[in-house]
């Protein structure tokens, strides 16, 4: 076994720079906080640095690892405190969909619901909303490809209840 300092992969910086923003975004979807998400990203890249995951599979690997790690953190309740996250206070406005303004309160209750979901269901939701294909989500979570849609949809239904409203088709 290796001892002492980490053997840094020669491709690490390149992988880091090309994927960092995306990994933070994945973790932030779970945690609702950029700062906590950056902590998770650091940890995930440390693990990646010690792994032998091929660079061309790094994107999927990092996304999955960030999702699991962030969900762990969310459940452990060790996220940064609300005060530390105050900088994130602005409501999220989805570009081009002006009516979709999500309040801070709603975002918090959605995270609480996410923490209560079965891990695999929560992970499927986050991975899908992070852009993984249905086949990739299925492979990452040992789901059958046919059940990914149902799993994601059910998770969305639970979160929507927390939003206390339902979107209506336009």
């Amino acid at each position: 076994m290796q001892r002492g300092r980490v053997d840094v992969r020669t491709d690490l910086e390149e992988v880091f720079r090309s994927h960092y923003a995306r990994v933070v975004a994945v973790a932030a979807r779970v945690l609702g906080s950029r700062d906590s998400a950056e902590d998770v990203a650091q940890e995930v890249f440390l693990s990646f640095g010690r792994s032998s995951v091929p660079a061309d599979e790094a994107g999927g690997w990092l996304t999955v690892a960030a999702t699991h790690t962030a969900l762990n953190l969310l459940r452990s309740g060790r996220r940064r405190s609300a005060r530390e996250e105050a900088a994130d206070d602005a409501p999220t406005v989805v570009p081009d969909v002006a009516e979709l303004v999500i309040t801070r309160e709603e975002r918090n209750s959605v995270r609480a619901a996410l923490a209560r979901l079965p891990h695999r269901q929560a992970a499927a939701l986050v991975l899908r909303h992070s852009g993984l294909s249905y086949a990739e989500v299925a492979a990452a979570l040992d789901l059958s490809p046919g059940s990914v849609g149902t799993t994601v949809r059910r998770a969305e239904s639970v979160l929507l209840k927390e939003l206390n409203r339902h979107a209506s088709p336009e």
Partner: protein
Amino acid sequence: MRHPSEGVLRRLVDEPAGVTDDDRAHVASCPTCLRALETTRAEARLVDAALATSGSVDTDAAWNRFATTAATAPTRPRAVTAAPRGRWLPAMRRPVVAALSAVVLVTGAGVAAANDWLPIFRTEQVDPIEVTSSELVELPDLSAYGDLEITSEADPQPVADAAAAQERTGLAVPEVSELPEGVTGDPAYQAAGVLSATFTFSAEKAARAAAAAGDVLPPTPAGLDGSQLRLHAGPGVAAVWSQPTGVPTLVVARVGAPTVDSSGVPFETVRDYLLSLPGLPAGLAEQLRDLSADGGTLPLPIPADMVTSSTAAVDGTEATVLTSRDGLFAGVVWVKNGVMTGVAGTLSADELLSVARDLR
């Protein structure tokens, strides 16, 4: 044709090409499905908005921070987030259940007791999946075969330090002389009292359980009906080292080994009879087989598909070494003088053995 499922509609929102031609054609011509599709689409977008966060990252600053950390970071623990395919999750769960909970979890105690005990080693941070799942609960549940009464709750609680743990339990927390690479910081301490339960065998209940399994109860040996087993485990103490994200990297635990004694009929008679019952869950059977009157054996249900086990000498006695087949997790457990000691974590078996051998 039938309306496609909600899962198919959901996929249609994201990946129309992943849906069969028949389903697509149906939805296109079915007003009900079209409405459902639009609702699904709108709700997916709303959830997406709720999950979105604003702000940008400074990749240069992040790389500088990372490069500094990586240069000083130990090589361990490597694997806590190394989940390229997610398959380590179930693999982690079982050894956690087998090694950690078996370090303390009581054979023969009921569901409530298991739930009370488990928080010590819930390690849901190791395994984000539900560690307290029903499979664990079924292992020790003898309530289908009689009355199970918890006579003393373990009441596990976090305590401030090793001294407080010792004061509460009378057990000294084993002291690790040298932490393995990658395990840093101060541990969190847990302490639990003695968990006791009384199991009263009931031929009537056992007959019902057998009938539910579609079978008849074998003849009950004389004196068995109404005979009692008393089960004890604990007290227990544990020190848990975790990563900043809450993932435990090392757990060192010591606990009074589970013991069982009987009134009336010898324990072995009760056990062998229980083992002969139709429909007895396999996990429960294994625990019963491993249970002994003197607390001298380990009630370790080892899931052979997930974990390899071997033995090694620790502290002048034979220890069981468990390693998950993916190599991410290992545990070392041994019993000496009725006290079980366990060391487990996201480390290699060699590292854990060296921790185990150097415990003070």
